[in-house]
């Protein structure tokens, strides 16, 4: 098996070389084929690890100077590898039919395989150096892919800069946290850290955990380090945004769980309350911005922040249960978290791919310029609908199952003596519920404005269905949304194994499986398959009844326009107007800016010639936190520039002062 692991790495590298060196005609197919082979290898290894339960390792002391290259893929890591590989396969197939966005350049062709490979190997790393090596390489390659289209759109470099800065900030925090642990463990291998972490001093453990949460949180898009995410994910090309949003952000969760549960074996209550608070904040903030955004991909990106927030909420709940001694429940919550990671990967991959198809077909991702696409792009539209239903956590699609399990774990965690838990759980449920409602709102907005109704622009009216590779790549994920929603038992055992693996326990299984999902020992089970069957039967029955009683075929008629003859797209609700009530409701949080511009007719100021209203809900953190910080930094930099004024005397004076200081202090 370790041979296959190495083969995966080599294949990924080969894809990279092929992308860089092969002639333009075969560049894309060859590099994609090699990368697909690497993904297949990773899938095989990952599935083997999950099925057999035995970790696969590979060590080589000749690689990575003075520290060695160490891989060890255990069940927990394997889950993430399988998810990444699965998403990558679909995204790569999709990429075969996708063009534009600078993805065909030599650089991008070489970097894409590298990015996929790092996604596959981050969870395999088993020491600090190897981990950071892949982690940083992942950050770098994804950054390059985000920047791929910089020549054509000025927003791309800006997005890249945000991403680079936030990811580097996160990487620095991770580096310090992990090095701190490695130092106190006396070895940089994860196994050694895990073995000695319980004997470390509390401040070391806490400092490391907080740093790691900050660092990995920034990758997972947790508030307030999320600002890069809506920019980078929306500016990157289709396959890349899918890979980033469905696979890369997961690794932030991987890191937090790996360190918090795997290496540190849990910690005090406040750690997990912190994680829950970050999660809740991210979920709410992401959901709100997602609900009020009019840019299709930005909306999806904020939804990623929302969903990763929910996962963090579950991770925090799991840690909280573990520290209060309720290990079975801790496992349930962690399973809910990991299940949501898996399902989020599936539906967000599906959504980003189909949204990119829409973008390619219409040339825009502004919802207010779309409309009527379901009839023009039936497959892509349906795929988007399926993914969106899953995103809204509606029943019989996959998002529902994981949210349900999280609700269950919170419900059963509630009767607790610990006041922290008692307060955290209802608040958590409230957050979950509100984000659920907002996600439904978001979905209706995206699908209703983007796919239904009348096309709002010429480009939308001319849109045609995209090619088979693109519909295939996204369609597979949509099918998975349905399949996993109806039959979660297909992945549940693997997820439970992974959760058990990282918790390092082997208690009695707290979950009911088979066609049902639920907690064993209580009457709280869900049989999504049966629910789906009943729902389908009900829909069928009602449809039959309707067909039986109605007198004739459906008559196509003009819609009611308050008596106006002609109905145009200008009369339709737009995404902005759709989100307006919600914006008003959450005015204090979103702080939208309104700009009304009225120009009068020259003859009389009582007649209005034109009126434009401009509203925007930009990111509050960006405006209130980052913009002032940016300004302060720039001001400091400008001020600092005047200290070295070019005078050799001043420079020498620095030296004289230093010399006198040396003499006074040392002699």
């Amino acid at each position, binding site marked *: 098996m370790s041979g296959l692991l190495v083969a995966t790495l080599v294949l990924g590298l080969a894809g990279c070389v092929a992308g860089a060196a092969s002639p333009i005609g075969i560049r894309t197919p060859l590099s994609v084929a090699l990368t697909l082979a690497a993904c297949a290898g990773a899938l095989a290894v990952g599935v083997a690890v999950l099925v057999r339960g035995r970790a696969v390792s590979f060590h080589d002391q000749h690689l990575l100077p003075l520290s060695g290259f160490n891989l060890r893929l255990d069940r927990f890591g394997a889950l993430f590898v399988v998810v990444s590989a699965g998403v990558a396969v679909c995204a790569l197939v999709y990429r075969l039919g996708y063009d534009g966005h600078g993805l065909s350049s030599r650089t991008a062709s070489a970097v894409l395989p590298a990015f996929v490979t790092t996604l596959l190997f981050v969870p395999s790393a088993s020491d600090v150096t190897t981990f950071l090596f892949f982690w940083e390489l992942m950050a770098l390659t994804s950054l390059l892919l985000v920047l791929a289209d910089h020549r054509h759109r000025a927003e791309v470099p800006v997005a890249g800069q945000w991403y680079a800065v936030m990811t580097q900030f996160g990487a620095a925090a991770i580096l310090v946290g992990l090095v701190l642990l490695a130092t106190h463990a006396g070895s940089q291998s994860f196994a050694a850290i895990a073995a000695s972490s319980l004997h470390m001093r509390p401040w070391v453990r806490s400092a490391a955990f907080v740093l790691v949460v900050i660092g990995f949180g920034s990758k997972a898009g947790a508030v307030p380090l999320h600002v890069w995410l809506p920019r980078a994910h929306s500016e990157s090309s289709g396959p890349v945004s899918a890979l980033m949003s469905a696979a890369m952000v997961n690794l932030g969760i991987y890191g937090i769980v790996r360190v918090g549960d795997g290496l540190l074996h849990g910690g005090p209550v406040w750690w997990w309350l912190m994680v829950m608070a970050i999660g809740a904040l991210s979920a709410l903030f992401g959901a709100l911005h997602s609900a009020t955004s009019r840019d299709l991909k930005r909306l999806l990106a904020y939804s990623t922040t929302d969903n990763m927030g929910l996962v963090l909420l579950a991770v925090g709940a799991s840690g909280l249960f573990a520290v209060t001694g309720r290990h079975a429940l801790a496992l349930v919550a962690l399973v809910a978290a990991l299940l949501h990671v898996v399902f989020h990967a599936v539906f967000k991959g599906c959504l980003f791919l189909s949204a990119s198809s829409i973008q390619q077909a219409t040339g825009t991702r502004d919802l207010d310029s779309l409309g*009527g696409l379901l*009839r023009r792009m039936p497959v892509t539209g349906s795929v988007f609908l399926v993914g969106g*239903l899953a995103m809204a*956590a*509606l*029943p019989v699609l996959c998002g529902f199952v994981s949210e*349900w399990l999280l*609700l269950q774990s*919170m*419900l059963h965690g*509630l009767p607790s003596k610990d006041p922290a838990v*008692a307060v955290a759980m*209802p608040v958590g449920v*409230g*957050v979950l*519920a*509100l984000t*659920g*409602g907002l996600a439904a*709102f978001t979905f*209706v*907005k995206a*699908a*209703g*404005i983007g796919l*239904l*109704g*009348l096309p709002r622009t010429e480009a939308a009216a001319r849109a045609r269905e995209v090619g088979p590779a693109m519909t295939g790549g996204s369609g597979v994920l949509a099918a998975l949304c349905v399949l996993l929603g109806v039959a979660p038992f297909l992945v549940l055992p693997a997820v439970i194994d992974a959760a058990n693996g990282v918790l390092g326990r082997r208690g009695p299984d707290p979950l009911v499986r088979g066609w049902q999902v639920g907690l064993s020992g*209580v*009457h*709280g*089970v*869900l*049989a999504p398959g*049966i*629910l789906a069957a*009943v*729902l389908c039967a*009900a*829909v069928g029955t*009602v*449809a039959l009844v*309707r067909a039986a*009683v*109605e*007198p*004739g075929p459906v008559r*196509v*008629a*003009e*819609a*009611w326009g308050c008596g106006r003859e002609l*109905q145009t797209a200008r009369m339709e*609700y*737009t995404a902005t*107007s*759709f989100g307006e*009530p*919600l914006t008003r*409701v959450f005015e204090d949080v979103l702080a939208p800016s309104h700009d009304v511009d009225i120009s009068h007719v020259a003859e009389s100021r009582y007649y209005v010639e034109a009126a434009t209203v401009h509203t925007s809900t930009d990111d509050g953190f960006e405006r209130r936190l980052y913009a002032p910080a940016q300004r302060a930094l720039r001001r400091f930099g400008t001020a600092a520039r005047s200290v070295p004024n070019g005078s050799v005397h001043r420079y020498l004076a620095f030296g004289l002062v230093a010399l006198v200081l040396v003499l006074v202090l040392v002699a």
Partner: protein
Amino acid sequence: MTSTWSVAADAAISVLQMAGVVLGGPLLVGLMRTVRCRLEGRVGPPVRQPLLDLRKLARRQRTRPEHASWIFGLAPLLLVATTLVVAAVAPLLATGPALGWSADLFAVVYLLLLGSVALALGGLDTGTAFGGMGASRALTIGAVAEPALLVSILALSVPAHSSNLPAIISGSLAHPLWLATPERLLALAAFVIVIVAECGRLPVDNPGTHLELTMIHEAMVLEYSGSDLALIKLGESMRLGVLVALFAVLFVPWGIATSPGPEHLAVSLVSLVAKVAVLGVGLAAFEVGVAKLRLFRVPELMAGAFVLAVLAVLSALVLA
């Protein structure tokens, strides 16, 4: 549930519940309308008028706006179907309907949400300003109602250690005093507010209005006609019926059949009808006395409900 007979009996209960909701929902609406008219000093239509309306509408031809897609036709089906599923799995007549173990309160909530989402999509599919407006408003209210709804469910579930409906009802049957506890009363209050919002009743929405400024639900369904409109009206009244019935069995569980048998069922049916009728009359009386809230005051109401629900959970923990 092992013998074929009891499975058949459970299935029969489910079918009975579905049929009851299909018939009872419109009747409840009719009852409420009549009560309202009487209180306002009018005679009003007969109680069965909604059923007659449905029959009339079902025979009319359907129309579809020219730009609409297949979503438009699917939405009414989904609305009715999700409510039917809820009616089938909820323990309205007996504590153990068929499939009762396959869903719980959370699932019920999300199923109803699916129906609302479908309807909103149908509204947007028409491509008119009204559809979008109704969908936007309905979902805004739905989104802010969701936390209160789920947390009040949590308050109910905590003492039973389960969100499974039969478990909750059995629990309250076993501990009658449980009903009078503060957490239950708080949860009750929150639940009522949420039901009013979910069903689009006053003061959140006025089902009778067709004024642009105030329409919520009606704006969404403006383009539906014929059998589709019948389905939507049916679905809406079924929702009201099933939620009121659920409310009745959750908070006043007595009379529900705990074991199979026609005599138990009959008692259960009678008591349920009585409870729902009383609640319906009460609700109608309440509606007469209030005016519709401004749209942007509704979230405040929902926030209040959420606070009540959180208090319910906390008091459940403190008093437990």
